């Protein structure tokens, strides 16, 4: 028996009605190791994590924790007691409680809350981890990033042996990610084993020691980080050799039709109530441009203002040079603007409705309340786009919520493409979806543009934007601070513009 081993999962099986989510999966974690768990969406990462944390019970297989063999983990609480702590992508704290309570609730056997001690302890912990929050503050009054860090503080304080970080970085900006990595390294030095789930490849190579790859619910392999270069990792995840991820721009021609230089959309001094400074913006026919900046810099708020998703306070908006009024999403849609929102779950899918209803939704609303599509027509639309975008679904009648993240995103994309917009806004269309779908979407964007559609593309991954956009609007602190085109489109130039102070 290896003394260094703190977690051993052997032959884990778990199935849901109709799906084998995990088949004979193995996973091993050593003391003081940061271990990346990689795989496409639907590969079984989340299921494995949930089995480990007691949210799901496994169908078969064994879990050994340290020297305890074949432990049974029946609930999140029993996982906690065994020294397994988890920080999830979505905040799993209670917004109505104080920061201190969120750190300490549900732990320990004491039936009485000692507020004074709890608050001082919490303040000490927050200070130690350099988290900008007060113990007595209501959690809801903290920013999402701070909430995420409070969740990590809780996990850290629980004296855990195994720390699971399930996509903790997707709502953090770069500095905060750095801080988190610092924290992870400290914990590693203390001998904590960390399981790190993320979609950001850079981050894997920055902090991890080992990688375990899952595919289609099966264990593919465990690798030392140095033995598995990026391209190979992607290939392993996809189960095929990737020709090349980096250059897809060259494959598609750019739009060269008529009215090439016409400004399809133009905004002057646009401002919404979401707290962004007034900004100017335009997009030409067949152009792909993007908003870039750190998380919280106001990228999403800008496009939301364009679409009328937030309350527009002031500004002039022109389509094809003619002034129009866009005060609500329907106005924008009538003008041929489509918007794929940042948060798929909250703003995108309508979970219980079928794939078909989700696809026709936007066009249906545009057509009007009193003119519903016939069932046949709706069916035809749905089938067309399921085929076109290669959406993996049992039928067009399946509720969208039972699809995987990438396929849900494709359905939402289909919804807007069906509208045949002149101007398509994609806000983080590739977040939280697998690499294969990411490339599909990028290719699609360029293809649409070459056919004359104007596209605004927003992504947290700069290289993705460099690959697709021909012009980037750079934002900092809710203000547009620069615009990059041509030769200026490089990582370093973007970074320096975002950082400012030239």
């Amino acid at each position: 028996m290896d003394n260094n081993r703190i977690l051993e999962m052997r032959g884990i099986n778990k199935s849901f009605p109709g799906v084998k989510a995990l088949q004979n999966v193995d996973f091993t974690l050593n003391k003081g190791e940061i271990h990346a768990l990689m795989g496409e969406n639907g590969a079984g990462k989340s299921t494995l994590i949930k089995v480990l944390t007691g949210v799901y019970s496994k169908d078969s297989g064994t879990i050994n924790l340290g020297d305890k063999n074949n432990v049974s983990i029946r609930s999140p609480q029993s996982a906690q007691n065994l020294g397994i702590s988890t920080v999830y992508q979505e905040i799993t704290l209670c917004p109505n409680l104080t920061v201190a309570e969120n750190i300490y609730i549900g732990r320990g056997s004491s039936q009485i809350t000692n507020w004074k001690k709890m608050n001082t302890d919490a303040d000490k912990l927050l200070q130690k981890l350099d988290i900008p929050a007060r113990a007595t503050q209501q959690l809801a009054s903290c920013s999402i990033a701070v909430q995420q860090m409070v969740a990590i503080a809780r996990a850290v304080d629980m004296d855990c042996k195994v720390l699971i970080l399930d996509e903790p970085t997707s709502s953090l900006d770069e500095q905060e990610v750095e801080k988190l990595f610092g924290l992870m390294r400290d914990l590693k030095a203390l001998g904590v084993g960390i399981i790190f789930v993320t979609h950001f490849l850079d981050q894997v190579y920055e902090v991890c020691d080992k990688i375990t790859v899952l595919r289609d619910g099966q264990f593919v392999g465990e690798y030392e980080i140095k033995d598995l270069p990026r391209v190979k990792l992607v290939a392993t995840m996809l189960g095929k050799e990737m020709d090349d991820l980096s250059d897809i721009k060259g494959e598609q021609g750019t739009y060269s039709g008529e009215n090439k230089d016409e400004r399809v959309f133009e905004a002057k001094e646009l401002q919404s109530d979401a707290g962004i400074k007034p900004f100017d913006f335009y997009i030409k026919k067949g152009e792909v441009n993007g908003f870039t900046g750190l998380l919280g810099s106001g990228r999403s708020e800008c496009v939301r203002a364009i679409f009328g998703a937030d309350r527009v306070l002031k500004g002039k908006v022109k389509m094809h040079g003619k002034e129009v009024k866009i005060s609500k999403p329907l106005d924008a849609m009538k003008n041929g603007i489509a918007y794929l929102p940042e948060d798929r779950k909250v703003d995108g899918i309508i979970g219980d409705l079928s794939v078909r209803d989700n696809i026709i939704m936007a066009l249906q609303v545009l057509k009007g309340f009193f003119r519903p599509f016939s069932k046949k027509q709706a069916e035809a639309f749905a089938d067309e786009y399921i085929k076109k975008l290669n959406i993996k679904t049992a039928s067009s009648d399946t509720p969208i919520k039972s699809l995987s993240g990438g396929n849900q995103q494709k359905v939402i994309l289909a919804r807007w493409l069906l509208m045949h917009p002149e101007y398509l806004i994609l806000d983080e269309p590739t977040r939280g979806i697998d690499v294969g779908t990411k490339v599909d979407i990028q290719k699609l964007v360029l293809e649409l543009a070459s056919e004359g559609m104007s596209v605004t593309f927003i992504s947290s991954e700069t290289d993705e934007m460099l690959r697709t956009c021909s012009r980037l609007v750079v934002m900092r602190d809710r203000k547009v601070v620069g615009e990059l085109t041509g030769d200026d489109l490089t990582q370093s130039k973007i970074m320096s513009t975002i950082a400012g102070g030239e």
Partner: protein
Amino acid sequence: MGKSMIKKITGHQMFIPIMALLLLAVVNLIVDPGFFKVTLGTNNSGDPVLSGSLITILDYGSELAILAIGMTLVTAASGGQDISVGATIAIAGSAMLRVLCGTNTRPETIQAPIIVAFLVACVVGMLCGAFNGALVSIFKIQPMIATLILFTAGRSIAAWINNNELPIVPDPKFKYFGGFIPGIPIPTTVFIVIACIIVIVLVLKFTNLGLYTQAVGINESSSKLNGINPTFIKFLTFVILGLCVAVAALIKVSRISTINYSVIAKDIEMDAILAVALGGNALSGGKFNMWSSILGAYVIQFLTTTLYKFNVQSDALSAYKAVVVILLVIFSAPAVRTYFSGLFAKISASGKGRKEAAK
């Protein structure tokens, strides 16, 4: 294959209300087969009327079925229920009487045509709905709490409209709506329900009301980004329910030609909500099945009539109803359902095992 078929049937939304209906029918059949007898007789004024328990159910389930239509929409869009329907029936009914009788509580003739009174009741019902709807959609107050306001005040307002008097409508024609039209043996209420169902079916077919309410109920913010105005849709469902309330009020008031503010349509909100729930619609909103709700309404009336048949006092009725309701919800609870399907699977698996062993 047989298994998936069974699953399809038991999983269908109509399964629970149909099973409940069958169960009630069987119980009645065993206890008293006469329950299902429908006879053609004559009433006091010598007109032919159908009578029998089934007719009673169809007749007295009408208000509930009509309310269930509106309640289903409200539930779907707002994820909450309107508990003020009983009280607003009192308001709308009171307004109707005020128009019909004027200030005189015992008029010789009606003071305004019935249709005018009905239209006034519709406006009043829709105004009440609009009040609830505004609180829910604009001020974002949970439906049950927002409608608590009219629930508390409604019967008082109804009494206030007629200065706490109980006017009696002198025109016998007014009785037709809750009784029988001379020469037609089927209760008028049945026709009213059919008319309401036709209207709602047409509305659902020729507008996007169904799609929009479900979308708003499932994901409001997403609906908004698709160009739907969730505030308006929620508001609209409450106004529609207000209209249903007015129709139900017409039937209720017509049955007795007068009103009793504290008793009229008492507890009907509970029955209407139960109808929606019994129909397998999630009370937390989202997807709905209109037919299922309407069927649910008649199941509840069936239950009430059955209990009366068993000589249960009207005051004690609720205790028995409660037991039945609890049994129904327990059996439709997902936790219990999975337990039973697991049990079935085990039984059939062990059966198979035995067969194989025998081979």
